[in-house]
């Protein structure tokens, strides 16, 4: 028995080493760095250990804006993309022609580089030549300065992100829909069930594990939004930083301002927020299934 478990550990060792070195160690170091005041990356020295970085962080207007923006972003992007994805997955699952073509179309955003998509969307959002404003003009709506005005920048980011995150959600919902027995739908038909009630009472409960999964993953990813901002606003965080997010803030503080202590503190704050929300989410969904 003992020999066997030793072999097991040896097999695990390479992966364990990689995880320890590239995930656990940086995590611990980041937490430590967040408490080092006056950290110098050149010689690893620091002036003191304390909450100075956190004080600076929370008194920084830009960080508070980043937190607010990110929260608004999560609140809109996650539920909207799940809802839309659900509807589209149900549609894709029904008897329509050219199903394969639609499935490919809807999955494209997932396999395309976010930078490329961001550039194209920045053209779609262009206030002068953009496709979106063109379509809006058919309804008599004036050209909206999507990427030029702080009032609309966050909205543009949210629209873009909902579109992008739908692809993965559609995929897992489609897979989930396959697991619902077709006899249930037949029974519902015999029972003269209107389509919306079929959706609410049979379809949605049937794939509720997938929905829960999409929600947690979506929430975690949404809190870490960076690439979308970067690619939509041409390497900035929107007009007057109106679309700045927490990760963007971290990146900026770390690489541009070389303010490693504050960047680490921000990273720790983000980690705590995501961890807390995930735990709450798990508790709620566990209670539901119990």
């Amino acid at each position, binding site marked *: 028995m003992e020999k066997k478990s030793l072999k097991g550990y040896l097999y695990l060792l390479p992966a364990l080493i990689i995880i320890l070195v590239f995930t656990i160690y940086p995590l611990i170091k980041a937490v430590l760095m967040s408490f080092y005041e006056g950290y110098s990356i050149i010689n690893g020295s620091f002036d003191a250990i304390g909450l100075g970085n956190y004080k600076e962080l929370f008194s920084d207007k830009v960080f508070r804006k980043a937190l607010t923006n990110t929260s608004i972003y999560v609140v809109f992007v996650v539920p909207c993309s799940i809802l839309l994805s659900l509807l589209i997955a149900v549609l894709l699952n029904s008897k329509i022609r050219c199903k394969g073509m639609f499935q490919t179309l809807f999955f494209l955003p997932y396999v395309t580089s976010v930078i490329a998509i961001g550039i194209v969307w920045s053209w779609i959002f262009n206030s002068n030549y953009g496709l979106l404003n063109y379509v809006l003009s058919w309804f008599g709506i004036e050209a909206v300065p999507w990427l030029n005005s702080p009032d609309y920048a966050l909205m543009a980011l949210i629209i873009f992100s909902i579109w992008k995150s739908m692809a993965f959600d559609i995929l897992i919902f489609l897979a989930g829909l396959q697991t619902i*027995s077709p006899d*249930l739908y*037949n029974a519902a038909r*015999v*029972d*003269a*069930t209107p389509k919306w*009630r079929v959706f609410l*009472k049979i379809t949605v*409960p049937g794939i509720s594990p997938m929905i829960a999964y999409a929600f947690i993953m979506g929430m975690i990813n949404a809190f870490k939004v960076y690439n979308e901002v970067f690619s939509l606003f041409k390497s900035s965080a929107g007009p007057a930083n109106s679309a700045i997010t927490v990760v963007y803030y971290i990146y900026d503080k770390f690489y541009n301002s070389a303010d490693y202590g504050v960047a680490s503190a921000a990273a720790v704050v983000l980690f705590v927020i995501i961890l807390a929300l995930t735990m709450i989410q798990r508790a709620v969904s566990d209670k539901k299934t119990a």
Partner: protein
Amino acid sequence: MEIRIENLTKAYGDFRAVDGMNLTICDGELVGLLGPSGCGKSTTLFMLAGLTEPTDGKIFFGDKDVTKIPPEEREIGLVFQNYALYPHMTVEENIMFPLINRKVNKKEAKERAYEMAKLVHLEGLMDRKPKALSGGQQQRVAIARALVKKPKVLLLDEPLSNLDAKLRIETREEIRRIQQEVGITTIFVTHDQEEAMSISDKIAVMDKGVVQQYEVPQSMYLEPENLFVAQFLGMPEINTFSAVVKDGAIYCGQVKLREISGLSDGTYTAGIRPESFEVREDGFAVEAAHVRMTGRDLLIYFTLDKEPLRVLAHSDLQIEKGGAFKLGVRQNQIMLFDADGSMIGKY
């Protein structure tokens, strides 16, 4: 509600699952659609329900042609093989569901649901979810749900196949009881002939999309119209062998079984049910090659001039492997079938 099926056909390309079926089911009858897998019985049921569209033919409920009417408007109740209970609703909600959809108010729907539950003996389980119920209980919920909207026709797809043996017997009696109490025209699909035989008013035996015989069970058992029906009904299965008629007698090989008249000489397919043999002092001598005991009965395997046959006898007989005994065939129990399988007569 009388059900009339006229020339009903369902074709998938060249393959005909149901081929020109004609059948009339009287009001209040419990009819079994019996047959092997792939004979078209479930297809027929789903066409009756309206879930499958027929390629040709018509279906009448009473005087009304319902062929083109969708399932939700046909006033039918359907019980699926795997029950198809809504997994995330309680029993109560499951049964109320068809009523809620038809805009019955909640109070009345609840009352009627409880009424149904009483009918199928489900009281006390109303708050449970389907996964907390046994197979038999789930089935009763499915039946209650099908009946709660007071349909004119009840359809059941292999209702007993997911139950264990003892439960099957209990449940089929329940189905019969409920059907009689409500008085609703009921059609159920099964591949189990014993099941069909025990509760149906009439059985329709199907093979390859065609109805072979439509008859009251006992009559069908005693007077099968063809070889298929004779072989399908009866457990243990009927003995079949090639019999020669010559010199006014039926022979099994060299053994003369019976003297008959009025039948031309030739080779025929003969069928003798295992219980049609009897132990007789003046019968032909046989030796038990193999004996299987099933509590009450003995199934003895023997050969009659190289023809392997079986006889069903009472276990009191105490014959063992290798034992010798004498057999005769009861009167009018030798069935003869001609070349295309139709019954010629019983001799």
